């Protein structure tokens, strides 16, 4: 059994006295895509931020690569629902931001940024400002920025919910391929989504959550073969099972 990249044991979170998360425990195994699904208010985004080290857990343990997490998780990077690109920086500069923070000189960091943009298919847009890009392209820049940190685990917070159907589907496939791309070192991802279909389409295992308070109902393994087809009949039993668990 491989050593989990991230492991949560009895993680709980309280906000102003109210319990948002209760006794959450699961592992993120190397090479897998893990999805967190649940109704709104189940605390899945909060959980993702706890894994990222942005928020401390109120109780329980979070380990990253075996070490107890205190502060920002050095092994993860985050992709935002709203893309969160700095509007005054060009795409390549946005992607290079984590490297700039680390003091990497301009030529080197921009070269890496352009390489990652190329992986996302946006090489020609390296010098575009976010406002010149469509939603799908902005999210690709967001993904490239996250990958620029060479994270062991890519964290995605409802990354496709701000995109239209066409764009979202293309991007989903791209992310799935990305995690197997030799040009990219990241192989593991945690995806938060409110769409059960999306979770079943993309993930190897799905953590089904319930709300009031947020807790894990069960973890379902999706052993359907890849490549998967959206809405394919072989995926339906998984979708049904997850809906049942969540309600």
């Amino acid at each position, binding site marked *: 059994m491989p050593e989990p990249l991230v492991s949560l044991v009895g993680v709980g979170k309280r906000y102003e006295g109210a319990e948002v998360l209760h006794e959450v425990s699961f592992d993120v195994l190397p090479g897998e895509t893990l999805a967190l699904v649940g109704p709104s208010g189940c605390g899945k985004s909060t959980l993702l931020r706890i894994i990222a080290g942005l928020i401390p857990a109120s109780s329980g343990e979070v380990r990253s690569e075996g070490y107890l997490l205190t502060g920002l998780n050095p092994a993860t990077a985050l992709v935002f629902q709203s893309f969160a690109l700095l509007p005054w920086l060009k795409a390549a500069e946005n992607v290079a*931001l984590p490297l700039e923070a680390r003091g990497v000189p301009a030529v080197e960091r921009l070269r890496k940024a352009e390489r990652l943009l190329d992986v996302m298919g946006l090489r020609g847009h390296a010098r575009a400002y976010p406002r010149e890009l469509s939603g799908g392209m902005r999210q690709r820049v967001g993904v490239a920025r996250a990958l620029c940190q060479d994270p062991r685990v890519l964290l995605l917070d409802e990354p496709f919910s701000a995109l239209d159907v066409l764009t979202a589907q293309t991007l989903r496939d791209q992310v799935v391929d990305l995690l197997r791309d030799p040009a990219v070192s990241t192989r593991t991802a945690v995806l938060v989504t409110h769409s059960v279909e999306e979770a079943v389409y993309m993930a190897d295992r799905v953590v089904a959550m319930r709300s009031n308070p947020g807790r894990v109902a069960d973890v379902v393994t999706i052993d359907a073969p890849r490549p998967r087809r959206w809405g394919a009949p072989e995926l339906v039993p998984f979708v049904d099972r997850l809906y049942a668990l969540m309600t």
Partner: protein
Amino acid sequence: MRAWSAARLRRASALDGLAVVAVALVVLVVFLDEPHVLPRTSETLNLWPAMLPLYAAYSLLRMLGAYALSLGFALGAGYWASASPTGRRLILPALDVLQAVPILGFFPAAIFFFIRLFHGSPLGVEAAAVFLIFTSQAWNMAFSVYESLTTIPEDLRTAAQVSRLSGVVRWRRLLLPACVPRLVYNSMLSWAGGWYFLIASEIIAVGRKSWVLPGLGSYIGESITLGRHGLAAAGLASLVAVIVLLDLLVWSPLEWWSGRFRYETSAAGEMTAPPLVRALLRRAPLVRGGLARGGRRVGELVGRVAAALSHALSHQWIRPLLALGAAGGLAALVYGAVQTVDVLLRPPPPEAAQIPVALLLSFLRLLLAYAISLAWTIPLACWVSRSARRAGRLMPVVQVLASVPATAFFPVLVALVLWLRLDLNVSAVALVLTGMQWYLLFNLVAAAQAIPEDVRELARATGASGFFYLRRFFLPAALPSLITGSLTAWGGGWNALVLSESVTAAGRTWSVKGIGTLLDEATYVKGDLQMITLVIVSMVAAVLLLNRAVWRPLYAWASVRYRFDA
């Protein structure tokens, strides 16, 4: 780092050369003459018109110095208020009070600290003038920095955090850019305010003693006092020329550039065409490269300083130092407070009894001026709001008009009113108007521009026009800005009162009964510190009361009810 290679020099064009020559000339002229300070009584300022360019340069330098200080203060105070709860509790109320103090209120401080401390030397007086201009710029800008920093979208902040942005890079890439749009806007307003009070800043007087600095403001002021109207007109024309030039060369490009830093996600094509200067700059690649690099260096430098300071703030050993500084500041404050209380507790001079009535009269004048301002700014802004293009065409004109200091025209207005045999109150109200209306207009037009395009289309589609459009579309959209603008306008009005209620023209002083006249007399005529303090305290109290009781609650109510949320 790119070296000055021969290839780049070859790319330089005639326009580059011209620019270099122009800059060299300005530097030469400015440093040719030593500024000198003369007391008012003797033969005063050299009013020879040929001195005007030199005086213009001096005034400009003073404004620049004050602006640099204001910027530094604004970034520091604004950041501290946004980053720490203690900071916020200390700074915001302090800024509130400081903003309420009229510029004349700072004269005693200016004189005591700068002039007396430097024993009346030229340096001291210049410092005093720069300080006075600083007080008309700094508080507003500090507020805008605070607002900019606290309104950075949450996900951008988180993204920066996850990318481990800190120190210099955080300042350069996140904090400073976030401040740019509001800072540019506020800088333009601050400079307009600075020009407005230029005359007051360059002729510093308390009672019998006065100090006159060579500059455009003093030139105009002296000419008017001496009744030399032709010279005054020449001075005014120079001032207008400087303002227009600044607008063309500095503010318009800056405004265009600041558009890059807004959070809107509109498409690329909607950026307005680059201004004339940019087209020119494209033909002067050396200057442009130099400007770009210079700009980056400055940004880098500011970022470094800011980062170093904010880093130092978090260090352990800085705490005792800060405590010491705070103790020193506190001691000064306590001393000042004790003095003030002492002054307040002394048996008040007989004139003090006039304060309440004077305050009421001034308030009524402000109210009238406010009503008049609303009466013309709302329809104009409403008309502008119907089309996104109108604002773009109107604004440059309005900006220049607003920057031209009406204070220079005051004697003319008073003369006109006297000639028409109208009550002096008419001129007082009209003069106060000039200190109020532009703030209203700017805020209203900004709101007009911010109306979402689909709302405009809805109005067009439903044939909404005239009063109906005003009531249902424009006013709700503009209400928060109207209130912010009103708050600022009243602040400007209180400040303008001092210059509007008592005007000196052709050797005589014309005044109406009011708080501004009281302060004017106490400062310029009697030099009575006690009276000055009493008047200022009552003015500040009135302003703060109005803010707390009227504007703040109104704004809170309006911003919740009337918002275009996507």
